[in-house]
């Protein structure tokens, strides 16, 4: 709160004060009061008024400055009222009370949405677990009857179900993952086996190098991420998928590279955005634009960075960087 702002705000009050003083002067002169006397009275009045104004100004200034400071430095601005003390002057107190009440109302509102969101997510999780039972039964039935006719469709259903589950998980603020040392190889071969029939059918060769290393991540989430990347490679006509990891002192860099149709330069910066389908989504198989978006969200939550590099018609290389925290290596 600057002094000029304050003075500007008080201008009308000062005008009235001046008019009052001028009126008083006219009356005092009409009563032939001595000039020295008038001067003394005016000095006293102006001095008193000045001191009073200064006191009021500094009292307000200290409160508003504190308020302003908190507002600038808080990352959750709605906690402002909790962070400041109630002032000792009336309009400040009034403002403070209003702020508190509206913050409280908003917090309740958010809590309600959060609860609803959580309930919805819990329902999705439950539904996913339930729907997996008939899928599992069908898969076994196919195997027991020796028919492979339906298994590809079953896998598609399972993939879509996984998408819903991980979308719900990635959106949620709750922490439902565990970061621990995960052997990359185990996760990768799990996904390779899952996609085996499609890979063999399309004659896609698969090679893995340097995966004999452990990274700090959640294995289930990572498996989903691999599944999405492999699904994309298959969808976009790769006939060679190469997965390799490079180990550095402070990080492990995993490359997921295929020689499919690639991504155009114009599309490349947007592929991790929600609902972005781009050129490939239009000219090739229908794309929902959700897969890589979910991948990005999961990576962000797990603290991995994910990047894409591609030359159209040549290759696509998705890189995931797993950080290494020295703390994890304490023996």
């Amino acid at each position, binding site marked *: 709160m600057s002094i000029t702002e304050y003075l500007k705000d008080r201008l009308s009050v000062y005008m009235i004060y001046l008019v009052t003083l001028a009126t008083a002067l006219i009356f005092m002169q009409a009563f032939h009061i001595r000039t020295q006397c008038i001067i003394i009275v005016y000095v006293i009045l102006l001095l008193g008024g000045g001191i009073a104004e200064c006191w009021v100004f500094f009292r307000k200034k200290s409160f508003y400055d504190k308020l302003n400071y908190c507002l600038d430095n808080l990352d959750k601005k709605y906690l402002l009222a909790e962070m400041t003390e109630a002032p000792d002057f009336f309009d400040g107190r009034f403002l403070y009370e209003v702020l508190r009440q509206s913050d409280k109302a908003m917090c309740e509102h958010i809590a309600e949405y959060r609860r609803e969101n959580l309930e919805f997510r819990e329902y999705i999780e439950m539904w996913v*677990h339930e729907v997996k039972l008939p899928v*599992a039964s069908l898969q*076994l039935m196919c195997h*027991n009857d020796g028919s492979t006719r339906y298994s590809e469709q079953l896998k598609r259903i399972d993939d879509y179900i996984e998408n819903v589950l991980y979308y719900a998980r990635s959106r949620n603020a709750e922490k439902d993952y*565990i970061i621990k040392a995960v052997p990359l190889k185990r996760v990768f*071969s799990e996904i390779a086996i899952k996609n085996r029939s499609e890979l063999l059918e399309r004659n896609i060769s698969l090679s893995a190098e340097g995966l004999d290393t452990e990274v700090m991540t959640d294995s289930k989430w990572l498996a989903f991420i691999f599944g999405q990347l492999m699904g994309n490679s298959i969808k976009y006509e790769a006939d060679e998928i190469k997965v390799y990891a490079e180990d550095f002192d402070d990080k492990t860099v995993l490359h997921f590279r295929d020689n499919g149709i690639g991504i155009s330069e114009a599309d490349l910066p947007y592929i991790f955005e929600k609902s972005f389908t781009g050129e490939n989504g239009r000219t090739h198989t229908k794309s929902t634009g959700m897969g890589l978006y979910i991948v990005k969200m999961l990576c962000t939550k797990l603290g991995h960075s994910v990047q894409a590099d591609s030359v159209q018609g040549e290759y696509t290389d998705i890189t995931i960087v797993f950080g290494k925290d020295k703390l994890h290596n304490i023996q």
Partner: protein
Amino acid sequence: MKKIMIIEDDTVLRDEVATLLKNSGYEVQVVTDLSTSLEQMKSSGADLILLDINLPFVGGETLLQEFRKVSDTPVIMLTSRSTEIDEVLSMSFGADDYITKPYNPTILLLRISAVLKRFTKTGGSQMYHDAEVSTVKGSIDRNGKEQVLTKNEMIIFQLLLDRQGEIVTRDDLMTALWDNDEFVNDNALSVNISRLRGKLADLGFEDAIETRKKQGYVLK
């Protein structure tokens, strides 16, 4: 014959798993009255137990905890709950493996035989007729004559040997190879099998691996 007990509340799924196991040469005991699961687990004398997590009455995790106090029979948890937390919890309660639904049937069988093998260690060698098969050395030894197998050939031979006399599909062989991080294709599988045939013939086992058209292979 190894006996496997299935505790699962989804009856359709349970019966399909039972069929799968029976077809693969296991004796199967199915728990139908889930209110007495724990008693049945204790008294069954099964070699391995497949246990669902989401069960009525008492949950699978609690069952496992109680069961572990009296027995160390191998238990594989089957579940549709797929978070890392569930897995870590189950393993800490004493599960030997954890498989999420829906599962690849061949993988399920491989995991079962892996867990069973861990519990009935025979010193790393098996017999095939009068030849000694050493998985550790990766070789077959007959009357002092030794044939060294490659990793892929060993995986194939091992699976055929485990199910000697039965038909093993190409799909099963492929799954076993992929499960061991050998991402081979159809051609490579054929090549590996013919090489394995050659090596077996060298040891005097002529036509040991029989091809059944459109079905798979049988080790005689």
